[in-house]
């Protein structure tokens, strides 16, 4: 690994100042589970690593008012051990409990998962399904970005060189809502999604009020399939309509073939996984329990 300088700012202002001064030569680090690997293989070559996980604001979990605001550096293990999150946002627990294994989850943050912008990232489809936004601070002030607009390509996001992700806000999900994330991997754990699906539904008696579905590992960025809501909103919750959603997901996917699976296989998985994940989200919306893994 080439020489780097290391800084440990204590406030957002200090971190933004460091990033602004160093420009493209600096990179923020939270848990380092992506960044340190990338530095070691030379995929990213900053001169300066700005360790943001000692900034108190970035470690806050605020669950007042039914939603949750997650500090950008909060690691996975805090998320799946938080009772309020387990209760209100089980889909976030689905994601946090399958990112790496126990050791990775001790450091890996949801903010880092988002900023790393991998097409296969396991937290991003969940955040999109839940309608979350990214809160960003930079040298010219603060802004918020919808998660579906955050990733711009593999490993690329909307952040300017001076900008820091400070938190992620997930709005309160109404009564009769439920969400789920699942990925397909050939092992039981510790693997990269061949296909991942995050979905949230809000039901109105026996019909869909709204449906948000997002797919991992089938496009250069996590894919938000808005056509599923267009088709299902107002329709009855039936196997036939769930099957339609699977078909739409399959058609929306733009997968590549690689060692994890061919494009055809991935399209097939989009159909199967979308149906499964929607069924689980519906079960949760109706108050039923679905285990994270």
């Amino acid at each position, binding site marked *: 690994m080439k020489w780097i300088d*290391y800084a440990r700012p204590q406030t957002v202002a200090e971190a933004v100042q460091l990033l602004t001064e160093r420009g493209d030569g600096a990179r923020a680090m939270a848990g380092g589970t992506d960044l340190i690997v990338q530095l070691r293989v030379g995929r990213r070559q900053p001169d300066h690593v700005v360790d943001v996980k000692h900034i108190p604001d970035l470690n806050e979990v605020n669950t007042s008012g039914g939603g949750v605001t997650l500090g950008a550096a909060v690691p996975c293990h805090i998320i799946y051990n938080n009772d309020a999150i387990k209760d209100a946002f089980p889909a976030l627990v689905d994601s946090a409990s399958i990112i790496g294994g126990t*050791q990775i989850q001790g*450091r890996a943050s949801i903010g880092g998962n988002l900023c790393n912008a991998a097409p296969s990232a396991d937290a991003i489809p969940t955040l999109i399904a839940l309608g979350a936004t990214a809160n960003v601070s930079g040298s010219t002030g603060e802004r918020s970005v919808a998660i579906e607009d955050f990733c711009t390509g593999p490993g690329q996001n909307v952040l300017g060189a001076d900008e820091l992700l400070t938190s992620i806000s997930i709005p309160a999900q109404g009564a009769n809502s439920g969400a789920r994330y699942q990925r397909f991997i050939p092992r039981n754990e510790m693997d990269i999604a061949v296909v991942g699906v995050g979905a949230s539904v809000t039901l109105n008696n026996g019909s869909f009020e709204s449906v948000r579905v997002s797919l991992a590992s089938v496009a250069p960025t996590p894919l938000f399939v808005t056509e599923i809501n267009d088709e299902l909103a107002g329709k009855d919750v039936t196997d036939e309509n769930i099957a339609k959603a699977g078909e739409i997901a399959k058609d929306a996917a733009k997968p590549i073939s690689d060692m994890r699976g061919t494009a055809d296989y991935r399209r097939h998985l989009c159909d199967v996984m979308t149906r499964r994940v929607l069924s689980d989200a519906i079960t949760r919306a109706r108050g039923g329990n679905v285990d994270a893994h």
Partner: protein
Amino acid sequence: MPTKSYVQTNINGESVEFLAEPRQSLLEVLRDTLQLTGAKEGCNDGNCGACTVKMDGRIVCSCLVFGVEAEGADIETIEGMASPEGLHPLQTAFLENAALQCGICTPGFLMASKALLDHNPNPTEGQIRWWLANNLCRCTGYDKIVRAVMDAAQKMQA
């Protein structure tokens, strides 16, 4: 000329100081600077768990931590597991259940298993396998490791 950073940390209950380049991993510092060679390097990218140490109450892959991040932290390594009175029950159980062959994965498995039992003294087989998924072993086929952890859990409860 870049300079090394001064780091003050706590390892196995003792205050320790060292100098490190910011790019050096905690694993490199432990092994090459502090001669604590119990933590092993298997993959150097977070997959194998051979480098597992406890940092501020959580197990982590020390290959994915910078040494300079240890400033002010509390670190536990495999060197702190046995006491002057003898081996930790997990260490004894690994020996009695033949849960190791070449042994390179063993310090990591022991650190991870101890963290599991600290948090859940009576885990099911499924919970053990899930918790230990970040540790790889090329020799044993895992069954003996899982049985050793169950055995230790039982003995520690008795």
